[in-house]
C-alpha cells in the first residue's frame, strides 16, 4: 500500500499513477526543476542511510491520519536540468478530501522533513545551496494543528 523510492533515474508519471489503483480518488503532485534566473542545473544530495526510512515514515504518518488505500513517493537525486522531474507524490482514497489533503501534507512534509539538499548551478558557473524557506516551515506547520 506504501511505496517509496529514491534514485537517480526518472520516473513515468502515468505508471506511478496507475500503480495507485482504481480507488475512487487519486491525487498526485509532481515537482519539476524550474529554469528561473538563469538556472542551468539543480543537484540533489541526500543522506542515503536515512532517506528511505524518512520517506516511509512520512507515508505511514499520512496513512495513519487519512483513510488511504495507497501512497507513493518517488524522489530523484543527482544532477537535474530545468524541466526535469524531481519528485512524485501520489495518494489514493475512497473520497477526494483524504486523497487531496494527504497529497498536500506529504509534499509539505517532504520539503521540511526529508534529508535532501539542493545546490543550484547558474549560467555563470556559480553554485549555491538552496536555503530552507520559512514559507515551507509554515506550510508544513499547518498540518500539526489539525489532528
Amino acid at each position, binding site marked *: 500500500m506504501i511505496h517509496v523510492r529514491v534514485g537517480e533515474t526518472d520516473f513515468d508519471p502515468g505508471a506511478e499513477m496507475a500503480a495507485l489503483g482504481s480507488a475512487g480518488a487519486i491525487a498526485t503532485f509532481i*515537482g519539476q526543476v524550474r529554469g528561473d534566473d538563469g538556472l542551468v542545473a539543480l543537484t*540533489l*544530495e*541526500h*543522506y542515503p*542511510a*536515512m532517506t528511505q*526510512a524518512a520517506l516511509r515514515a512520512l507515508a505511514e504518518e499520512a496513512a495513519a491520519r487519512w483513510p488511504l488505500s495507497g501512497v507513493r513517493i518517488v*524522489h530523484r537525486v543527482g544532477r537535474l536540468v530545468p524541466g526535469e522531474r*524531481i*519528485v512524485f507524490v501520489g495518494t489514493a482514497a475512497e473520497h477526494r478530501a483524504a486523497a487531496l489533503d494527504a497529497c498536500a501534507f506529504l*509534499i509539505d512534509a*517532504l*520539503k*521540511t*522533513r*526529508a*534529508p*535532501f*539538499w*539542493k*545546490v543550484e548551478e547558474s549560467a555563470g558557473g556559480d553554485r549555491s*545551496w*538552496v*536555503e*530552507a524557506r520559512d514559507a*515551507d516551515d509554515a506550510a508544513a506547520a499547518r498540518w500539526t494543528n489539525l489532528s
Partner: protein
Amino acid sequence: MLYFAWVRERAGLAGEEIDIPGDIDSVGALIGWLRQRHPEAFADPERLRVAVDLKVVSFDAPIAGAREIAFFPPVTGG
C-alpha cells in the same frame, strides 16, 4: 561523523572517523569541539541540523554510544 551539503563542502570531506573526548557528552558540546577542527563548517551552529544514529535530534541530545552522527543544513528537498 558525516557531513552533508555545505557542511561537507566547508569541512572539505564527506565523513571521518573521530574519537570524541569523553567530556564531550552532548550534540552542543560536540559542535563546539568540531568548530576547532572545521572552523568554517561549524561557525554558525544555528544553521546546523544533526542526526544521531539516523534520528534528527536537538543540540541537548546525548551522544554517548552513538555510532553515526551527521551534520547538515536545514533540508530543501521536495
